[in-house]
């Protein structure tokens, strides 16, 4: 298993723009960022190594982020990875509960909100 001396954050979102900007923000803060656009790509990463935190979008094409989160939280191998649910929905905290996630981030967010949320769980 690969290890990083700096925390790895796995970002899962089907929007290229969101992935790019989160990557830039977190990389500037010296995190190692891996950005994936689908559940398949997420599973590929998890086969190889476990990230320190997952930022997970809810509404992705063809897949519900809440289901992915519940699945990860019920798997002994991945259940301890903190998961932050991201959604544009005003009920994002309810969605995070439904997803059995650890935290949430409402879109659109401030950079500081993103960084504070990440720091809280790493």
């Amino acid at each position, binding site marked *: 298993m690969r290890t990083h001396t700096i925390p790895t954050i796995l970002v899962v979102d089907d*929007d290229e*723009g*969101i992935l*790019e*900007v*989160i990557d*830039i*923000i977190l990389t*500037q803060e010296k995190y190692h960022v891996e950005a994936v656009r689908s559940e398949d790509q997420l599973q590929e990463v998890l086969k190889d190594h476990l990230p320190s935190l997952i930022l997970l979008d809810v*509404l992705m094409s063809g897949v519900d982020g809440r289901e992915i989160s519940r699945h990860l939280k019920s798997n002994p191998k991945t259940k301890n990875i903190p998961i932050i649910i991201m*959604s*544009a*929905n*005003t*009920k994002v*905290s*309810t969605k995070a509960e439904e997803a059995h996630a650890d935290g949430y981030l409402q*879109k*659109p*967010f*401030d*950079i500081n909100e*993103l960084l504070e949320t990440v720091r809280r769980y790493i």
Partner: protein
Amino acid sequence: MTVARSKEYSYDVCMESTNNFEWDEHLLHEKNALLDSVGEGVCGVDRQGRCLFMNRYAMNILGYTSEEILGKDMHTVTHHHYADGTNYPTKDCPLLRWTTQEHPIQCDQEIIWKQDGTALPVEYTANPLIIEGTRRGTVISFRNNTQRMERDQQMDDFLSIASHELKTPITTIKAFIQLLEKYYATDKTTQAAVYLSRVDAHITRLTNLLQDLIDVSKIQAGRLRYTNEIFDLNALMKETIEAFQMTTPDRTITYKGKPSQYFEGDKHRISQVVTNLVSNASTYSPKDRAVEVTLTPHKNDFVISVKDYGVGFPEDHIPTVFNRFYRASDKTRANFPGLGIGLYVSSEIIKHHQGTIQIKSSRDTGATVSFTLPKHKTT
């Protein structure tokens, strides 16, 4: 003649009402033909809930023959389980309560079980069946709700996708603007950071307007969803005002409340109301005057007030300010930004929580918008 009647029960009803009754076959034929022409299901039950008659539409859509339904207990035959498959005890069925209530009952979401075991979503109206001044049973008219439910679901999906699709690029734009702002923050040779912070503030405004529009669409479609939890109203007020203050540093918002005031309702929606009212107050009031927010617990309810010292509302406008398109008709407010639908959305949210909302104001003396939230709601 298709209307199925239970001879025994119909006759009973009529015999009870008059000793000298004889069916006028011609009249009956006409009445039945009328019932069969109705484009919705109509059926009658006696005071014990047994089926007295059922029109052609109902028989066709439910798939029952007259032998299978007439004289039978309607609840046992057509109403025995809830939509989720759990047992629906007869004692809980409103049918039995209808027999003692004299006013019509309406329900826009109910399930009737068809003969083939599938569920038919319906909306219905139940009216007392009164013959010669005496309550004899109930007449239920129902409509197939399948298409409406599909349309509602499509509307929900559309609004959810529209919200997501519009906010996704806004999220990216906002984040890049903030990155640039950070980049220029230390460069005193340009105004770039200042301009970018303006852009950022307007992106926040755009997001709020978008949310208002989505909420109005949901309210109009009757699809605004609420959650229910017990929370500390005072803590929520503080958080909401602090969050608002952060985005509007050039205004002063003061808050006075009392610790540990618990309320049961939708935390996010109440916070949205407070943000709306505070945002309105800051928009319409001068920069050098604070917006004053208070939370006062009373015996039966909480009163939350937002007071500003701005342009106020003309007194004759006050009864209409909670209308959906109030702002569009108020010329004095045309120079201020916003769609003005926030008050409408707020009043709908407060109504849902069984509270009231009101405005006290006169021209140029500012306005106080107050809303109440009951400590104990009626179910």
